[in-house]
């Protein structure tokens, strides 16, 4: 190392996020007293351009060769500050972040204690940074393919945009059909042309099917992902459809199939057979057998005129290489447990999505709103079912699309059945943005009645089948009871069932509710914290169709900025062998899950050697090395021990 460390310490206020709890000036003064610290300064937002300029000026003016930034978590802005170092001509790896926001000011309320802790964190960072070494980035060639998980509107729009730029897209869908949740929605709000969910899906699919750049894999699930940004090695499993391309959609098979199960595409309003076409305009346009309900009676095989059915089809393993991965795995509608707001106790209590199906002319009732043969007169919508902690089972967040969607459906009903009395029971109306508020205004004009509840309304289903909705109206402060012919539960969105499995394979974080987490909510909303992984659509939280398509396009354009590069840089914090100490015992080789270490013979001596292109920087081999010959750049024994020691000295 030779050169004496000359360290600059830069303490961020983060507005009041840090400065509200930590006495920043005191931390700066303290930092100045630490060994080798040449300059210490604070600024309101160190990550801002002027904040970065302070660091860059400091490096130049004081000839600094090490920098500590005391600010937010390194996952947030380590990259930003590394760039600032590089711009000032300093090696970007001579930086250490002291996390005094997430792990200090935000979790401690005692100002004195938080300030004392911030000082220790700065001291630990100074101790570590003084032993850091300059490193050079490792470069890889970028594979030009991208895999998109999820064939809903977000995934479809991303695939369309990426293929239009000439990139190869592997579109993976777990279900036997693409289109996702949007395909099941009826008339969409604000579309004068009576555009339906399926029309949006069809329009997007037009660019996707038969596109030579897009390879659609339905019935396909992710098995594993190895490698990293620029070159992911992906293994998939394509589950059998049991029906091949010879299927001409004649439907004879379904006629003879003896098995009936609830039709999930109609939200259980109708039954389907074990062999079925998900819906009329499904892509791919092929029947499919649901292996869970199929009894293998072979009746369908006997009647199929094109011999398209093969019950012996086996799952198929697929291996792909891609430079980037996009997760657009969507959401699931919240399904209330039996009894919640009377759901499941009467066919007069339905969800918003079931209503969407009933109002769709292609739906199970051909667009007629009829229950037990009669048209319901008193219709009560209950909003925030499954959202805003309305019930113990509900999620804490707002599901964003339900207010506009509820009012839209109420207006459709009112248009069609002007005699209907419609009540919308809500906690709060969130018809946000440029257009949705018009729906709310129009609903008022059409005399749709709005009432605000605080405590969850009580839906009472009498033994004779009649229903009463009772609640305390918050505005007039009065107990109200409405006899209802139909209760519609405006259910929200929840994370998809298998998302944890996908998330674990790709290594993306999630929030406490289970939606995937963006790298940064505001600055990097369509990227995961893992390099080369992008996020689109409702997998990060509730969105309407417009927002989902928007985020699909946004994620595509973010991915393009990676895919258009020839090479990608990887953090060079890999393992490295000190050949003079290495005894060639090979313990490290057994530790490495990537096969990155091998023994080489050098001057008749066996020593370990690390391939930096294969090393993923876990450091597991380092901890196992009995002689200390194996080390990890930026996480060397002496660097970490110095950091630990600094927690106590001083």
């Amino acid at each position, binding site marked *: 190392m030779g050169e004496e460390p000359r360290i600059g310490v830069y303490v961020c206020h983060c507005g009041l996020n840090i400065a509200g709890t930590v006495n920043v000036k005191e931390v700066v003064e303290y930092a100045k007293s630490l060994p080798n610290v040449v300059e210490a300064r604070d600024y309101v937002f160190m990550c801002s351009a002027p904040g970065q300029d302070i660091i860059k000026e400091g490096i130049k003016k004081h000839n600094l060769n090490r920098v500590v930034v005391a600010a937010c978590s390194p*996952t947030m802005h380590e990259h930003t500050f590394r760039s600032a170092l590089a711009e000032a001509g300093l090696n970007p790896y001579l930086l250490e972040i002291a996390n005094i926001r997430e*792990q200090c000011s935000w979790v401690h309320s005692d100002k004195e204690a938080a300030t004392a802790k911030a000082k220790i964190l700065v001291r630990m960072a100074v101790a570590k940074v003084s032993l850091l070494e300059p490193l050079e980035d490792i470069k890889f060639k970028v594979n030009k393919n991208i895999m998109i998980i999820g064939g809903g509107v977000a995934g479809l729009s991303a695939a369309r945009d990426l293929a239009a730029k000439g990139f190869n897209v592997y579109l993976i869908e777990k279900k036997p059909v693409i289109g996702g949740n949007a395909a099941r929605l009826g008339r969409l709000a604000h579309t004068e042309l009576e555009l339906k969910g399926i029309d949006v899906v069809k329009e997007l699919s037009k660019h996707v099917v038969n596109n030579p750049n897009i390879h659609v894999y339905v019935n396909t699930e992710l098995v594993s992902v190895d490698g990293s940004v620029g070159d992911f090695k992906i293994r998939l499993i394509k589950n059998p459809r049991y029906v091949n391309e010879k299927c001409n959609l004649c439907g004879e098979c379904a006629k003879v199939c003896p098995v009936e199960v609830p039709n999930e595409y109609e939200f259980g309003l109708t039954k389907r057979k074990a062999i079925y076409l998900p819906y009329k305009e499904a892509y791919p346009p092929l029947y499919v057998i649901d292996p869970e309900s199929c009894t293998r009676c072979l009746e369908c095989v006997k009647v199929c005129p094109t011999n398209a059915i093969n019950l012996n089809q086996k799952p198929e393993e697929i291996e792909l290489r891609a430079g980037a991965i996009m997760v657009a795995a969507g959401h699931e509608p919240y399904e209330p447990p039996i009894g919640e707001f009377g759901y499941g106790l009467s066919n007069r209590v339905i969800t918003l999505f079931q209503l969407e199906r009933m109002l769709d002319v292609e739906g199970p009732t051909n667009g007629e709103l009829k229950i037990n043969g009669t048209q319901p007169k008193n219709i009560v919508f209950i909003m925030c079912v499954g959202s805003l902690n309305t019930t113990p089972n509900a999620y804490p967040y707002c599901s964003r699309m339900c207010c506009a969607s509820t009012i839209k459906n109420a207006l459709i009903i009112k248009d069609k059945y002007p005699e209907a009395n419609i009540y919308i029971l809500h906690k709060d109306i969130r018809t946000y943005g440029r257009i949705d508020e018009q729906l709310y205004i129009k609903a008022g004009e059409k005399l749709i009645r709005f009432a605000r509840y605080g405590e969850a309304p009580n839906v009472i289903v009498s033994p004779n089948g009649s229903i009463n909705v009772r609640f305390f109206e918050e505005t007039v402060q009065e107990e109200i009871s409405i006899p209802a012919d139909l209760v519609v539960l405006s259910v929200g969105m929840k994370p998809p069932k298998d998302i944890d499995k996908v998330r674990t394979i790709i290594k993306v974080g999630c929030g406490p509710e289970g939606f995937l987490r963006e790298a940064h909510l505001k600055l990097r909303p369509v990227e995961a914290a893992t390099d080369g992984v992008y996020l689109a659509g409702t997998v990060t939280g509730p969105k309407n169709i417009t927002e989902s398509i928007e985020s699909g396009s946004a994620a595509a354009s973010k991915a393009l900025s990676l895919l258009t590069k020839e090479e990608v840089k990887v953090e060079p914090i890999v393992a490295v062998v000190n050949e003079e100490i290495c005894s060639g015992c090979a313990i490290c080789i057994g530790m490495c899950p990537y096969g990155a270490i091998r023994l080489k013979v050098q001057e008749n001596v066996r020593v370990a050697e690390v391939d930096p292109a294969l090393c993923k920087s*876990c450091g597991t081999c380092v901890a196992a090395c009995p002689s200390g010959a194996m080390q990890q750049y930026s996480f060397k024994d002496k660097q970490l021990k110095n950091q630990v020691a600094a927690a*106590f000295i001083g």
Partner: protein
Amino acid sequence: MNQNFEPKIIAFLCNWCSYAALDLAGTSRMKYPPNFLVVRVMCSGRVDPQFVLEAFRRGADGVLVAGCHPGDCHYIEGNIKTLRRMTLLKRMLEEFGIEKERFRLEWISAAEADKFVKVANEMFEQIKALGPLKLKEVNTHE
């Protein structure tokens, strides 16, 4: 036992799961005692048992090593190596007279901020009850 005793805990956290969980605890404004100091490593597999000993020798009253859940390791199975090493270390620490409550290995996913805070608070309570770590003989080798 000294009522004013505030234990000092060093936590070695893997970058991907447990460090992210502690960040989430911050984002969620959860609360835990301040004397909880983090050393970030890329994988819990990087934690050399010597680091734990070093922390105790320097004056830690407790040490936490945390990583991804088995099967969830960002580096496939680094945490399994950690489990083996730390199991052995635990037995050794007891031989040294370091109470078992002072050292913990935990699997904490990026979403489990609440678990993290629970573990941290538990450690503080248990170690507070034990009092400061006394390592007279060892400490003479400075």
